[in-house]
């Protein structure tokens, strides 16, 4: 009782930390009972909790004993499974050494227990209160779309890409990709695995077997190729387009890439394409035809990524900018029921 009264007297301080490849974003929000009292965002060029970072955090946390630290799980070994039924989880992954949570009784997100301990150890000086999965962040960010659209939803971070396919809030497929460990060779091998490249006897063309006349009959089917000119008039394609998202996207500034960003975006594109291929080819997952890709951009991807995806996958791609620390903060507030 006394605790509740005291809690009401103090502001709540929510410290949100997102570690990047070479920097660290700290977003702090001070919350009174009903409104935001103060907020501050600062980027430090360090990936450890230096005295500068700790001082910045302490300057806010010392004001209230009710301070909470929320971080995004950066474990490379994490993911999500499209079921919540315990006896079906093992069909997808052995979760003995993983910590997992069921989301809305529909799907499960998991992470390696050791990585969680490592994260807690890393933040031992300030103590960590919440560790959120990027899949939860992604779901919450695209909550309006996830509930009604079947699409590929991607959270792009500095070093990671979290992909998930949702249909009416139900997860169909999810993958967490680490850009630093996924080398080009690996990507190539994945591509090679996915494509049925058969160099055996069946791949050769025996000209004797070619029956030109029969084949010509088949070619008659191409007589309708002229119809393709009128494809633009077919409404079916336009139905899959998200007009609302296009308006939203038009308001966003277009980012032109430099060489380094170009490489990264290409890498991202490759990973996404590979992952999409994996989804379609894997028998473990329920394959559904995807028409849209929604990208939550947490780093500022260039327009090239969108262009690649649109040209190579023939899907509608929508990019929405995402401030990851703020999204984490929103989740922390939900946890705290602020």
């Amino acid at each position, binding site marked *: 009782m006394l*605790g509740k009264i*005291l*809690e009401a*007297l*103090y502001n709540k301080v929510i410290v949100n930390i997102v570690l990047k490849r070479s920097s660290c974003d700290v977003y702090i929000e001070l919350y009174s009972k009903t409104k935001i009292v103060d907020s501050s965002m600062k980027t430090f060029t360090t990936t450890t909790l230096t005295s500068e970072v700790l001082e910045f955090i302490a300057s806010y946390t010392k004001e209230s*004993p*009710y*301070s*909470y630290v*929320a971080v995004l*799980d950066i474990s490379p070994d994490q993911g999500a499974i499209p079921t919540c039924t315990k006896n079906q989880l093992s069909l997808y992954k052995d979760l003995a050494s993983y*910590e997992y*949570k069921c*989301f809305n009784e529909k799907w499960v997100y998991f*992470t390696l227990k050791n990585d*969680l301990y490592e994260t*807690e150890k890393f933040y031992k000086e300030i*103590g*960590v*209160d*919440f*560790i*959120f*999965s990027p899949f*939860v962040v992604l779901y919450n960010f695209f909550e309006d779309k996830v509930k009604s659209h079947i699409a590929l939803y991607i959270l792009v971070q500095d070093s990671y890409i979290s992909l998930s396919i949702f249909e009416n809030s139900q997860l169909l497929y999810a993958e967490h990709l680490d850009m630093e460990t996924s080398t080009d060779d690996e990507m190539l091998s994945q591509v090679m695995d996915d494509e049925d490249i058969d160099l055996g006897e069946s791949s050769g063309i025996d000209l004797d077997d070619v029956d030109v006349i029969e084949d010509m009959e088949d070619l008659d089917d191409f007589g309708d190729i002229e119809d393709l000119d009128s494809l633009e008039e077919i409404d079916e394609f336009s139905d899959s387009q998200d007009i609302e998202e296009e308006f939203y996207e038009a308001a966003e500034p277009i980012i032109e890439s430099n060489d380094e960003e170009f490489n990264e975006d290409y890498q991202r594109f490759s990973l996404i394409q590979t992952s999409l291929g994996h989804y379609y080819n894997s028998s473990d997952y329920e394959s559904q035809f995807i028409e849209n890709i929604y990208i939550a951009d947490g780093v500022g991807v260039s327009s090239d990524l969108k262009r690649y995806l649109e040209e190579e996958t023939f899907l509608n791609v929508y990019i929405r900018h995402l401030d990851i620390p703020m999204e984490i903060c929103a*989740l*922390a507030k*939900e*946890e*705290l029921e602020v």
Partner: protein
Amino acid sequence: MKYSYIAPKKKSAFTQEIQLLLSFFSITLLMLLVTYAFLLYKNYTFVEDKKELSTKKIELEKSFLVMETEIAHIEKQKMLSETVYTKNTVLKDSIANLFDLVPLRITLSQAQLLKNGLILYGITPNKDIYNFMLQAPLRSIFHKTYSSFYPAKNGWYRFVSTNYIDEEEIAIDE
């Protein structure tokens, strides 16, 4: 723990500094309360003692009055006893004087001492002996003296002598 892998640590407003401050204030407050309680108790005992003393005082005052009354009564009794003693002494002396007054030849049969007089009954051989030897001293003591004689069978005389002191004259003398 709706979305997070871990549960938040329990937060409390009672940090170490606050705990130290609170314990300091609590001890101070406790000491003040103890002192206050002690003073209240002392005050209570003082008031009780005061009440008891005032009750005792009233009782003593009452007993003083009773004692004063008793003293007055005893003094009165003493005065009365002294008066009685004095009167008795006077009476004794008077009776002794009276018997000294009676000559040997006269025999008294009865004497009545009155408040302001004396009545004597007796036998005298003759009137002269009575008149000279008894009546004369009685006349010197009493203002009024009356004598009457009755002859006895043996020739002697029975007499009744009534003597009074005039009180008005006594008052004038005083």
